[in-house]
């Protein structure tokens, strides 16, 4: 065991030495990037110890008292932990599946449309919302949803119906957030699927057409099965990120509207509140670490599954 690890070590060393001798230019090109990741990604990892401390900024990491698992016990013991974890998972799963469905749908429709000008125009328009920040979307949402002046309620009251109190009704927010998510991301998501569809050999469709298959049949029996690989790959890659909530989205659309917290408060917004509003750094770190660890487990599982299904696209 030790012998083999020694050999590995030796080989590692000789790799670096070899590169130092023969690829100095390439190593030089790597240097700024490596320094960047050490400072901005690896150095903050030391900060993980804060999660196990009763941290105070004045005393610093070295001076603060260690409290073991106290922060975790407090968080996991509170009602918040289940709520924010569930909301994060539930909302992300909802976004993931709905976005995928609409991305594929848009890609399919774009691939069937013959008129080039129309196709280009429609593609430009459906991708556009991806380039708009969530802060702006928050204001767009207000114009649509506001109780007194919002467009939707204007239409509803115009039709003689009761207005919907969007900003007071927590139950409809998972659906609303999903709609905004589709609005913002489905067009952009369709690019990859459209590329995959364009890559399919046209002769297969020719053959199916000669055999009398309709468009719908070709989609069902040719396009969709061939898209399956792309879809599964993208799905698995996103599953790894399922514990990372979209902070910008929730912060812009919900903000500090506590009436909506029961369905919209996610781990990321919770960590932010612990940090900025309550100033509890130890607790905030602990929740952040909890999220990181869960995410890491998910990635590892997702990668294992990918390796079984399609070894080539496994990440490590």
């Amino acid at each position, binding site marked *: 065991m030790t012998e083999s690890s020694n050999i590995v070590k030796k080989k590692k060393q000789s790799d670096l030495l070899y590169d130092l001798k023969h690829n100095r230019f390439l190593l030089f090109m790597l240097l700024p990037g490596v320094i960047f990741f050490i400072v901005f990604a690896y150095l903050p990892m030391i900060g993980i110890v804060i999660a196990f401390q009763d941290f105070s900024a004045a005393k610093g990491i070295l001076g603060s008292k260690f409290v073991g698992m106290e922060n975790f016990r407090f968080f996991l013991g509170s009602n918040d932990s289940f709520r924010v974890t569930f909301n994060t998972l539930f909302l992300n799963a909802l976004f993931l599946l709905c976005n995928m469905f609409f991305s594929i749908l848009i890609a399919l429709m774009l691939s069937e449309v013959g008129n080039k000008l129309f196709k280009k125009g429609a593609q430009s328009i459906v991708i556009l919302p991806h380039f708009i920040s969530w802060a702006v979307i928050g204001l767009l949402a207000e114009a649509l949803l506001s109780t007194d002046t919002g*467009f939707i309620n204007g239409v509803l009251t115009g039709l003689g119906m009761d207005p919907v109190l969007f900003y007071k009704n927590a139950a409809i927010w998972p659906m609303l957030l999903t709609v905004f998510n589709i609005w913002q991301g489905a*067009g952009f998501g369709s690019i990859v699927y459209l590329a995959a569809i364009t890559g399919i050999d046209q002769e297969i469709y020719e053959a199916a057409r000669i055999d009398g298959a309709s468009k719908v049949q070709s989609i069902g029996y040719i396009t969709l099965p061939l898209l399956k690989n792309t879809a599964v790959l993208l799905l698995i890659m996103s599953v790894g990120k399922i514990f990372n909530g979209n902070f910008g989205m929730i912060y812009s659309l919900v903000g500090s509207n506590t009436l909506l917290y029961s369905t919209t408060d996610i781990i990321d917004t919770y960590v932010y509140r612990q940090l900025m509003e309550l100033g509890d750094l130890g607790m905030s770190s602990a929740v952040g670490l909890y999220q990181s660890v869960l995410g890491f487990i998910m990635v590892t599982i997702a990668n294992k599954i990918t390796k079984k299904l399609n070894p080539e696209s496994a990440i490590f």
Partner: protein
Amino acid sequence: MKKNNIKARYGDRIFITCCYLLLIVFSIVCIFPFLLVISASFTDEYTLLWEGYKLIPSKFSTSAYKLLLKTSQLADAYLITIFTTVVGTVLSLLITSMMSYALSIKKLRIRNKVAFFVYFTMLFSGGMVANYLLIVKYLHLKDNIWVYIIPALINPWNMMLLRNFFATIPESLAESAKIDGANDLTILMKIILPIAKPGLVTIGLFYALSYWNEWFKAMLYIDNEKLITLQYLIMKVLRNTNFANTVAGSVGISVNIPTYTVRMATVVVTIGPIIFLYPFLQKYFVKGLTVGGVKG
């Protein structure tokens, strides 16, 4: 058989018509909120409050824009955002492409280890608190414009995407240039970079967009009003209905402040550049994304 075929073609035509219709509907849904906001920004304040948001304003007014023109807040935020977007994108592209290129060359023996070293940062991070302490206490970047740029120089995802793009360039090209006596730098400048242009433009666009849309760093690290970004200004507008009052206060107007329409006018002014630039850039990122992205 033939009859079946005709029936199928008829069904196809209906199907394609449905595709057109659905795409039109989806396009309208995508563009509708923008139209609503543009219209609201040109509406008279009282009309907006009384009648609500409408597609065509019943009373037209430009007072919101007039008020916005009088304040310096928007201009400051614009300058800051343009500076960080331009300088940040150039620096990010430089460092990212250097790293991506080196990692795409097979003769570099440590490349897989370095790739994992980068990949690991996508899986695990020190968290918000540690980053905050690093930037504020140790790097002293609070209230400093470089806080927008330096911690965002490399996005690991973009780096990997660009590396995949470089990897599609056949190595024989570089080999043959080497035989002709070119050194590494000449090969990179004269051969690799011109070929990689679509990939570079795509990644550059992603960087530019993330710098342009930055607001979180402003919220965490910037107290100086003169240094906030455009998107954070929007966020403040969103969170604070009294934005127009502060704007009006700063230029000494106190009656008839168009509160709601000013907010909408601010949105229009900030998304304007994106919407105008967008059609020119679209062809690049569709191309770059499909080459570098499908291979994951």
